[in-house]
């Protein structure tokens, strides 16, 4: 293991940034989360997400296919909750409807694609983004490309094991966790207003 531990920091990191997992970053357990490569309690990461989103100039949510398509029970409600969260955080939403590389050209104003997510980030000058509802393989692929070529701060709200390649990552994200994050943002906004 390298002497200085690798940290998952905002880019542009360079030509071909490594997978954070290959640099010794471990995934969190349930109840934990990752901030810039370090394992922290989930609550702390939620606070950090709220801070990041509320202080961002141009935050965006990128809901993936698992939230855009009403394919199983519970998805519609979850999509609604995510939309509410984005609105509350003052973030705009750009969808990732599928995973094939876009031919002949992507319209980066209206969509994002995991094979070339940087195009959408650059075009919309996005400084903080949230991945949710994207299959883990494609999310990791995209998160590395974003870290390599853009200065966007990446957040992953993952229903499975989480993402080392995001700067902040939650894991095991279900409805209760979504509700808690919404609550935190709500109260942080209240404090800011006060």
């Amino acid at each position, binding site marked *: 293991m390298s002497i200085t531990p690798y940290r998952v920091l905002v880019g542009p990191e360079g030509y071909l940034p490594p997978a954070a997992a290959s640099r010794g970053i471990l995934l969190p357990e349930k109840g934990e989360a990752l901030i810039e490569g370090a394992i922290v309690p989930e609550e702390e990461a939620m606070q950090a997400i709220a801070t990041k989103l509320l202080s961002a100039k141009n935050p965006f949510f990128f*809901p993936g296919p698992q*939230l*855009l*398509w*009403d*394919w*199983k029970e519970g*998805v*519609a409600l979850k*999509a*609604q909750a*995510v*939309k509410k969260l984005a609105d509350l955080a003052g973030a705009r*939403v*750009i*969808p990732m*409807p599928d995973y*094939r*590389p876009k*031919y*002949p050209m992507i*319209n980066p104003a*209206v*969509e994002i694609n995991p094979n070339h997510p940087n195009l959408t980030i650059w075009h919309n000058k996005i400084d903080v983004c949230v991945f949710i509802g994207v299959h883990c393989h494609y999310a990791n692929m995209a998160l590395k490309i974003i870290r390599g070529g853009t200065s966007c701060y990446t957040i992953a709200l993952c229903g499975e094991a989480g993402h080392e390649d995001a700067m902040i990552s939650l894991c095991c994200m279900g409805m209760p966790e979504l509700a808690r994050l919404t609550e935190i943002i709500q109260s942080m906004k209240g404090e800011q207003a006060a």
Partner: protein
Amino acid sequence: MSIKVIKPTAAFASLLPTEYLELVADGPYASPKTINDLGTFKEIIAEHPHCAGCGVALGVRLTVASLPAPADTLIVGTAGCSFFGLAQAALNYSCSAFGNQNAVASGLKRMLKIRYPDTDKDVVVLVGDGGIADIGLDLTLHSWFRREKIATIMVDNEVYGNTGGQESGMTQEGQVLNMAPKGKNFAKIPVFELARVSGCVYGARVTVASPKKIGRVVRKAILLAREVGPTYVQIYTPCPTNFKFPPQQTINIAKKAEEGYYSFQEFISDDAQAYWEKNFASSTM
């Protein structure tokens, strides 16, 4: 049920790019379309990077426009020019090692049958002549011998288009191509005839000059593969780039071939015929 995978969630529906909204509203999923409806609905392949006048592109486009149940269809492909269009298709598309398509399709089809005994999940192999007749011939034949319930469709441009115009087993005798500098010295591999003796219950040989025939035989091949056994469709899809003819000549060349050595042919087993008459004889196509 699977149509759900193309129903947008209410929260985000308005944010979907136009192309998806069109697929949802006017795509072939909710009510399957036929070749006759081309031009009136949002196609599964809207854009593709094939060469101008590419016969393979047309063959692929016509094939996917003829699927009886696109919402429950999986295409298994392989390396080759057919990849270009299929990579853009609004369908599940798998493509792994060159020539292994019928083996991949065998595993997929058997498992989908076990996971969804009551839903027809059509597994359709759609690849080039090199993929089927040369590198994948043993896997193709064995899937037929084993009576795997797969429809195999060859887009036959009589050349390895994707790698720059080399001779394939389906190239005509005498044709000069890369790697056949003195002309090919054996005949086209009789895959169509092999299909008949290797277990296929239905086969058809067509060209892109006859889109309606393609629509009819592709649909028939897929419906018969569901219940009766393996089926095979061979479509002549001329390649302007490697045979160096002007792109606007593709259809003419296919038409000429259809009048000559690539005449329309069809075979059907007794079982398949009986099944067809019982279940689909009254159908419009």
